[in-house]
């Protein structure tokens, strides 16, 4: 459950960071033109973030 929550948090952060990065890169364009990239970045951030947290916890729990 904790991992799921942390993955969600990373997905949210990844999506927001990607959104603002794209706005900074191409302010002339609407962000709706990058919807797919933002979505994929969000999912990827969630997956990678969750895996990192899990990996860190496993290392912490190791005797």
């Amino acid at each position, binding site marked *: *459950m904790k991992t*799921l*929550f942390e*993955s*969600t*948090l990373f*997905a*949210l952060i990844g*999506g*927001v960071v*990607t*959104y603002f990065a*794209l706005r900074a*890169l*191409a*302010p*002339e*364009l*609407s*962000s*709706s*033109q*990058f*919807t*797919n*990239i*933002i*979505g*994929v*970045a*969000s*999912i990827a951030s*969630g997956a990678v973030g969750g895996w990192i947290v899990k990996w860190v916890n496993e290392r912490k729990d190791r005797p």
Partner: protein
Amino acid sequence: MGKRAKGSALAGMLGSCHCTALLFVGATIFSTVAAGACGPSEREVYVGGRWGCIPAATSPGGSTGEPVGGGAPGSVQSPVPYPPRAKPLPGVTAELWRDITAVPSAPWTGARPAVFTYVLSGDVGGDATYKGTDQRILRARANLDALVAEARSFDKAKPGASLKSANLFCIPTKSPESANGAAYDHRLARSYRQRLQELLTDQSQLRDRLGGVGPFLVATRLPVNEIVREGSSRDNHIVLIDLSSAEPQSVIVFMNEFKNAIRRDDVLADKELAPLRPAIVSALLRVNAAIPFIGSAYATLKK
């Protein structure tokens, strides 16, 4: 309620399976919802310093191919180009456009701007419509339509007005000028392109570039018929930008980079502009188009 009680209540809420699952779903779609706030029959435009929604039917050019500029009374204001980043030099402080119907050898008539920018199609055939299936040519023609619409979103040059500090976008057209611009003339554009290629005999890279599918923006300080490529006068130089790698949506980014480069650096050397930001934006747009599933899911969600 004590701090511990508050903490345990929060932990209980987060521990709830339903709540966390909802949060996860919300996070994955957050950005897509935030990214597009317009309805299905609307499109987002950048007007007056902020994004807003206008009905798709009032599209300022682009997909509909309608020319932009000089809007009819009561029509929605066309998108304002993003404010230039570079401070304008005294040389160029404004961008205007006009149609040209004269051949390249004809003398220039009317007021003279600081910089002439020719909006030229590449090697995409001379007919108004292309009936082939070559994807490169189809994309180049779509880019040209977007480029012409973008150029016509500037103010139109008024006859008799001073253009001393203007970068004038010259658009080859078939018929005399109309209010919002006439149909683009690919054959006239080709004759301008060939004339420029003849002038660039000493710049083989630029000359070869002009042989591509384009479209191109070619900036000079003199009209084409007056350019003499001898000596090192600052008036004889040619600055080129090739939009063959652009996507129709990223043409506005190329245009802004070109505008800023001319305002910042003027036309003081022969060079091809290859700005990085529009190239990255074009690549991102291609990647975005290659990932269709999020967009289709978002469209379903909005129904």
